[in-house]
């Protein structure tokens, strides 16, 4: 029997993976094949990437369409033969993948995401078993040793957050939840240019489930929620299937692996609000309210979900925990530089030839990612600007591409690593349009609680339009700077506070785009226009 893998993550599906799987099934109706729907390896430019198991390991072909199947079979697909132009060789030898330092994405694309047996066979649940033999404090200490920092963007040390929740007195909360603590996974991955959370959930969901269970043991929480954005229907389905399996097999429930400890897990869907990726908005949304930002203090660690002590961590933060418990905090801390320990999953997106997930230790430069991994733009034109860290991150010009990817080094040049999203633009981009969009996005997605963000963003769009139209341009440029100051200093959370990042960086590094003759100012268009 020949085993063939056809991915089922959102990106592979968006490029026709289901049609490829169907075509394979039909063409191989009288042959003995075992078709596995794996997650993706994250080499998205090769999707749909199908793999065949051979004596030499798994062999890859991509990007495959359903029309390619007959020719691929003729050229010896089932034996892993190299004849067809889509042949990529042994998957593990593809340089893009081979040179990565995969800890969190170690299993991504290798296993069937909803097979618990696959997960366990590939090292899963070793961390939980080790955690069950430790005290709560010992688990927290292990996470502290690892140096793991929150991967959602704010980079707060996870161990310190967990310690706060462990030490918090849950009895002060109001009924009916008093004495309880919660683990909340922030899976509201709304930043454009990011999909690493999605890939974890679609390719290796048990890792997240295990990480949350360990977090529950560490702080004494018996319930976890995964707050998932509604834009991720595939992740939703896969997570629910994995949770049901974990419950049925005793990895979740009232008595986790017969330890006498309970941990229950539920997926809650967001409803299309970017701001709910901010942890306090998320908590209000989880409670069934408008997703408005809360004033801190109190910290969610002390007064979080339903008024109780709560760990709120990003998907990637929690997904790193099983490795840390299985291999030890030191093993994780061995990767990285300075105070940025471990690895980060960078996501190469936008106008890029080879887009995908690149998991590396901190310290590589942006240029290595753009050129060595990304291979430049998909359009073949020069790269002009790169936005790192989501819609609230700065646009970086070429002079900054040698900055090492490290939280502190980026901070020094006024940029953010954030969640590791890297969006590439070629030289057709109009940076005034991008600055305007940053303000427009803030206006659409502001929760409305604080005035600088709610009103300032709309005023920002208007001011930029005046600059474009050359109406009192110099004065409006001063006004825009002033507005950015107000947003930065006066906003309650990062939405308003960081919207100036893309605006200011566009102004500072691409000033020509703000000084065009209004009659020649053009809308940014891409090569497909």
């Amino acid at each position: 029997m020949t085993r063939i893998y056809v991915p089922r993550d959102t990106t592979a599906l968006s490029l026709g993976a289901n049609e490829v799987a169907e075509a394979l099934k039909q063409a191989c109706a009288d042959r003995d094949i075992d078709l596995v729907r794996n997650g993706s390896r994250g080499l998205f430019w090769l999707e749909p990437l199908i793999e065949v198991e051979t004596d030499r390991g798994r062999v890859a072909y991509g990007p495959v369409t359903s029309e390619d199947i007959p020719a691929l079979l003729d050229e010896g697909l089932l034996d892993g033969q190299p004849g067809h132009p889509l042949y990529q060789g042994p998957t593990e030898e593809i340089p893009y993948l081979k040179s990565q330092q995969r800890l969190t994405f170690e299993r991504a694309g290798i296993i069937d995401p909803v097979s618990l047996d696959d997960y366990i066979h590939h090292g899963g649940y070793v961390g939980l078993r080790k955690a069950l033999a430790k005290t709560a404090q010992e688990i927290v200490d292990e996470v502290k040793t690892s140096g793991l920092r929150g991967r959602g963007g704010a980079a707060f040390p996870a161990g310190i957050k967990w310690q706060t929740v462990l030490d918090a007195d849950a009895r002060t909360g109001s009924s009916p939840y008093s004495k309880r603590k919660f683990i909340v996974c922030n899976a509201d991955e709304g930043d454009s240019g990011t999909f690493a959370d999605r890939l974890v959930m679609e390719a290796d969901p048990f890792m997240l489930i295990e990480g949350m269970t360990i977090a529950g043991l560490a702080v004494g929480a018996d319930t976890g929620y995964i707050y998932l954005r509604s834009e991720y229907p595939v992740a939703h389905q896969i997570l629910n299937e994995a949770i049901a399996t974990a419950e049925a097999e005793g990895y979740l429930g009232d008595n986790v692996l017969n330890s006498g400890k309970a941990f229950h897990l539920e997926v809650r869907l967001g409803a299309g609000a970017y701001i709910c990726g901010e942890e306090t908005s998320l908590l209000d949304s989880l409670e069934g309210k408008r997703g408005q930002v809360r004033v801190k203090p109190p910290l969610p660690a002390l007064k979080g979900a339903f008024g109780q002590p709560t760990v709120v961590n990003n998907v990637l933060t929690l997904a790193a925990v099983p490795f840390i418990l299985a291999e030890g905090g030191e093993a994780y801390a061995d990767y990285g530089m300075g105070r940025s320990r471990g690895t980060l999953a960078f996501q190469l997106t936008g106008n890029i030839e080879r887009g995908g997930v690149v998991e590396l230790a901190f310290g590589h430069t942006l240029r290595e990612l753009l050129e060595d991994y990304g291979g430049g733009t998909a359009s073949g034109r020069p790269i002009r600007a790169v936005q790192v860290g989501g819609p609230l991150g700065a646009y970086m010009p070429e002079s900054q591409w040698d900055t090492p990817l490290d939280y502190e080094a980026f901070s020094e040049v006024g940029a953010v690593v954030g969640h590791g999203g890297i969006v590439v633009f070629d030289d057709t981009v109009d940076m005034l349009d991008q600055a305007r969009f940053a303000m427009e996005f803030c206006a659409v997605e502001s929760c409305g609680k604080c005035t600088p963000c709610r009103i300032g963003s709309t005023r920002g769009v208007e001011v930029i339009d005046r600059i474009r139209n050359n109406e009192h341009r110099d004065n409006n440029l001063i006004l825009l700077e002033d507005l950015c100051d107000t947003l930065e200093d006066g906003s309650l959370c990062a939405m308003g506070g960081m919207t100036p990042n893309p605006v200011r960086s566009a102004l500072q590094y691409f000033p020509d785009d703000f000084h065009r003759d209004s009659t020649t100012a053009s809308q940014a268009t891409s090569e497909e226009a």
Partner: protein
Amino acid sequence: MHISAQDSSAGADLPRDWIQVEVAAHKAKPGPLLPILHSIRNRLGYIPEAAVPLIAEGLQITRAEVHGVISFYHDFNTHPVGRNRLQVCRAEACQARGCRSLEAHAQETLGIGYHQTTPDGEFTLEPVYCLGNCATGPSVRLNDDIHGRVTPKRLDALLDQATTQPLTLQPLAEEPES
């Protein structure tokens, strides 16, 4: 209880008993409102105004609170939507791959703007800010399927497929099932 009869699209056909059962089913869990609203949206495609008092009474909160939550979230339309929901990603990674011209094409082809429904009730067009498919943009979501590297031509084919494949014989003024 007063049910707004003026809301012709919803008043008469509102599966009132079903909503009450749905509210009761979720009531005991912490933070039940979003799960209830999702459940209604999944069934009807939108949240009819007449559902508001039913939810408020079931959860013992005010109608204003329910309305406030519905109006906060982009997902919860308060008017009937088309048989197909098309979302075009407008976020940065898709901008870098030409989504600005794709959204213009979508609006021109369908003859509607964002948050509008075609007169034949086939399509509702919505913006979306990121579908997490950023390495292979521009992306659109048609109902629950996400599509990558969508050119104007491919979008036309998707729209064509959506209207010609299922239920072409359905009467124009069809009602939500109850």
